[in-house]
């Protein structure tokens, strides 16, 4: 186990590299889904506004 | 061809009327090159080492500064739209404008650069290579700059990002230009990088006006 972590002396470098990769990948997942969610919410709002609009009643004289 | 000359002469005439504005990039070039010794060191050996880089960076930044004038005036007074609509192919118009622009802003740079080079203790016999390299490089920079200018001319807040758009594209020019100059300083033949600069120029002339006119059309909508 210790040998595995040491990576033949290069441990700091190898694990930093894999670590930053993991972080960036996770941030991308989070950020992308956040964008998608927000788009959906924006769409939902517009849809609500559309359906809340009452049809205008015209008075005919 | 006649149309090309026509646009070229018109642009030159218009630009020369406001010649004091044209000096700006030149003065900027001299100023930037003058600031480096203050910031780095005025000692001869230090200046000799950084001379090549300073020269090229200053030239690059001065070209960037000059870009704004390329399309902005025409776009503002509506003559750009007329040129787009005219029967002359837009690519030819653009090519002529870029050439005019280089003659007014790039060529003076090439003329003044040796003076700056000497102030950085560059040996006299490197000057021919330097001039040659700049003659090949500055038009390429004008073309690349034209692409950036065309992309941002229609945008309200586009001015500040022209540099961000253009500078990544100028990498190879800078690399070959400085390499040619360094080789000359070391007393060796700079033929390799000079040929490459020529190739870049050919590529720029062939494709640049096309990209620029595409960008101009979109910008003017």
């Amino acid at each position, binding site marked *: 186990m210790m040998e595995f972590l040491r990576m033949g002396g*290069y441990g700091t470098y190898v694990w930093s590299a894999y670590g930053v990769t993991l972080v960036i990948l996770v941030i991308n997942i989070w950020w992308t889904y956040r964008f998608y969610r927000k788009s959906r919410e924006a769409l939902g709002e517009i849809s609500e506004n559309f359906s809340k609009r009452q049809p205008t009643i015209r008075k005919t004289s | 061809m006649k149309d090309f000359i026509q646009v070229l002469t018109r642009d030159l005439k218009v630009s020369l009327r406001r010649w004091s504005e044209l000096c700006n990039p030149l003065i900027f070039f001299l100023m930037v090159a003058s600031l480096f010794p203050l910031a780095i060191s005025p000692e001869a050996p230090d200046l000799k080492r950084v001379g090549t880089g300073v020269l090229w960076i200053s030239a690059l930044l001065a070209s960037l500064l000059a870009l704004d004038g390329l399309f902005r005036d025409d776009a503002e007074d509506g003559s750009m739209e007329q040129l787009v609509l005219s029967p002359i192919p837009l690519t030819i118009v653009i090519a002529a404008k870029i050439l005019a622009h280089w003659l007014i802003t790039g060529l003076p740079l090439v003329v003044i650069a040796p003076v700056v080079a000497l102030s950085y203790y560059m040996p006299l016999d490197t000057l021919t290579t330097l001039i040659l390299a700049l003659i090949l490089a500055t038009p390429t920079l004008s073309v690349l700059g034209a692409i950036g200018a065309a992309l941002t001319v229609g945008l309200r807040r586009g001015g500040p990002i022209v540099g961000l758009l253009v500078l990544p594209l100028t990498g190879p020019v800078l690399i070959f230009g400085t390499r040619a100059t360094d080789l000359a300083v070391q007393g060796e033949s700079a033929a390799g990088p000079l040929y490459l600069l020529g190739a870049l120029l050919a590529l720029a002339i062939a494709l640049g006006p096309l990209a620029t006119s595409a960008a101009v059309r979109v910008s003017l909508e």
Partner: protein
Amino acid sequence: MNLRWFHKLASPPYFYRLASTLGPWLGSLSIALIAAGTYGGLVLAPPDYLQGDGFRMIYVHVPSAYLGMMAYVVMATAAATGFIWRIKLAHAVAVSAAPLGASFTFLGLVTGAIWGKPMWGTFWQWSDARLVFFLMLFFLYMGYLALRGVTEDRDKADRLSAVLAVVGVINIPIIHYSVEWWTTLHQGPTITRLDGPSITMDMLVPLLIMIAGFSVFFVWLLFVRLRGEILVREKKSRWAQELVQRGRV
């Protein structure tokens, strides 16, 4: 060549449904591939005779750098398609690919620097052509995003950034061939050589798996972001409204 399928693909509602169905599969597949590749790279692959266990950084560095470049090609191709044939969806693909590509390029730069320190003695080397042009690639992404950010009209933004993307695509072959044209710290190509890869199988396989994993990861998130982008662009359209009302967004 089934042209009708291509036409369908360019229609936002169809593509949206396609992307929604594929999404979860792509996600799981990419995570599985990346996990497998990581295990293979960290555990199964034998240590390098020169770099020892340090060479294992290749399994994150190369896929990142590769995807950084691939994403740009996708972006430029999509942008060009949208520009020439006026397909809105293509522009949506381009704008969705950009942030992903920029992330991968950033990751490639960082992992490269981390790898460079022990092996070459330095985090960065200005005289290495490939590093410099790869850095330019990052700046190109930034320029693309900046241009879009500053353009107020979306249509204009699509087409202006398309011109920029296509102009910048020349950087990609430059990066690829830079190791052949200049002597750099980077070694020459090990995989894409005409006479076969010059790396042993047990080291190569995890690398290929990682590259595949990263690629699927890219497509996965591209599709998710695309769905969001399509919703934004088509929010006033009937099909999108119906989708929301039926609760099937």
